[in-house]
């Protein structure tokens, strides 16, 4: 029976590894809501895949990437604050996706599996997708790491010092879009951002450098995925919430540990 768990474990591990550095930037750049919006648009991607008879992952990747580019373009206008804009796109795309799915009678889709993740839905093909994304995304992340960090500290300063800020930001957004596409089956649309943000936030307590935080987030993420999937397997709980609850516990424990350490140091 344990063989059935392997695809989810492998895919989950790959996703958590990527979510570490990507999620750390999401925390530093205050983009949690941004990530949520992209994830919510994933449902529209599912719809697109079903209607056009595409691979699910491809459909989601197309829509999340398109949304990332749209958001990038829209951020240049100043008439609406960007969180309002995100709200419109986030809930709009979620609602449209739901409606289309509800009206297409020929299609039977496990909605709760999409929203909260279903580890049994993960198959060998998904593992290959994650592996492919990992092979592309990790080197790209390594290349944009330093410039993206400079942009995060101060965009104009980075630009004045010769960094192609817009190109780097677009590459980062596309990486997030791709990770969301492959993560959806395991953690579900509503909880993907949690997998990116909570391990990063938890790793903050232990880190003195950006790299420590990103790496710590990856390691914590992998541990949470394994613990969460294991728990989900044993108790029949949906996999997404199981992983997220594990991550929240890790966050709380590390917070407590760091507080105690600080008290002791100040004594």
């Amino acid at each position: 029976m344990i063989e059935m768990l392997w695809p989810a474990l492998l895919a989950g591990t790959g996703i958590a590894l990527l979510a570490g550095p990507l999620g750390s930037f999401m925390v530093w750049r205050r983009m949690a809501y941004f990530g949520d919006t992209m994830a919510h648009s994933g449902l529209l991607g599912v719809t697109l895949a079903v209607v056009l008879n595409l691979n699910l992952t491809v459909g989601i990747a197309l829509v999340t990437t398109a949304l990332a580019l749209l958001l990038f373009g829209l951020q240049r206008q100043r008439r609406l604050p960007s969180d309002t804009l995100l709200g419109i796109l986030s809930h709009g795309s979620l609602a449209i996706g739901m409606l289309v799915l509800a009206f297409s009678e020929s299609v039977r889709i496990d909605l709760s599996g999409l929203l909260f993740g279903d580890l049994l839905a993960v198959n060998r093909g998904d593992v290959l997708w994650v592996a492919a994304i990992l092979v592309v995304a990790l080197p790209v992340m390594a290349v944009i790491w330093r410039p993206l960090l400079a942009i995060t500290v101060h965009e104009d300063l980075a630009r004045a010092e010769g960094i192609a800020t817009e190109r780097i930001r677009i590459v980062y957004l596309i990486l997030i879009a791709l990770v969301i596409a492959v993560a959806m089956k395991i953690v579900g649309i509503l909880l993907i951002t949690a997998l990116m943000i909570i391990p990063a936030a938890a790793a903050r307590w232990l880190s003195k450098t950006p790299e420590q935080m990103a790496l710590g987030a990856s390691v914590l993420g992998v541990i949470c995925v394994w613990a969460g999937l294991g728990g989900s397997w044993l108790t029949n709980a949906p996999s997404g919430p199981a992983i997220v609850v594990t991550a929240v516990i890790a966050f709380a424990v590390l917070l407590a540990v760091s507080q105690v350490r600080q008290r002791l140091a100040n004594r």
Partner: protein
Amino acid sequence: MPRTQPLIEARQLGVRLGGETIIRNVNLSVFDGQIVTLIGPNGAGKSTLIKTLLGVHRVSEGQLTLAPSLTIGYMPQRISIDDSLPLSVYRLMTLTHRAARTAVIDALRLTDVPHLIDRPVQQLSGGEFQRVMLARALLKQPDVLVLDEPVQGVDFNGEVDLYRLIQRIRDERGCAILMVSHDLHLVMAATDEVVCLNGHVCCTGAPETITRQPEFTQLFGHKHADALAFYSHHHDHNHSLAEQGGHVHD
């Protein structure tokens, strides 16, 4: 570099951002070893002008000429770094420009803060942070230092010290300095040329003469002009500019 060739020269420079004209018709030259200060009310386009010189914004009209292979050190307006980002002073200094620890310490020594090298940036005081950013701008051995409100977030005594430090850096390293300031009084002591900006350049000159120009009085009011005139008079008697190796251009 000969005096006759400016390091930075803007002619009839105009910049539009998002369809709005921020500055237009700006003429500005920065020569080697010169301290030029940009003053002007809020929204006058001071930061926009500076960022255009640095290549952050595109030139919409006019001409911008930089001396060949010019290195510019830039210190932006006071920045705040999110608490969630664990970043030491060393990493901040080497974000875009890799440098050995010893080189970073040397740069920090120029602004009297070498001991801060391993401090998390969020733990720095306002004055310490500005000194770190100044050292950061110096790290590349720049020909021109561009400083946008270098004393923002610094207490009054710190301000005086920081302006002195900037002047000392010019004297010791001979680099040109272009800075933005709100602070009329302090800036006058440590500058060779004042450029007063309000969308366009409304007046320009040595600090001693600019306060007598009607455009200046119009922009800053008689009270300021008088105070500054008094100040520069007082300052002449001190001979502090001459003592510190400064010079005045007309």
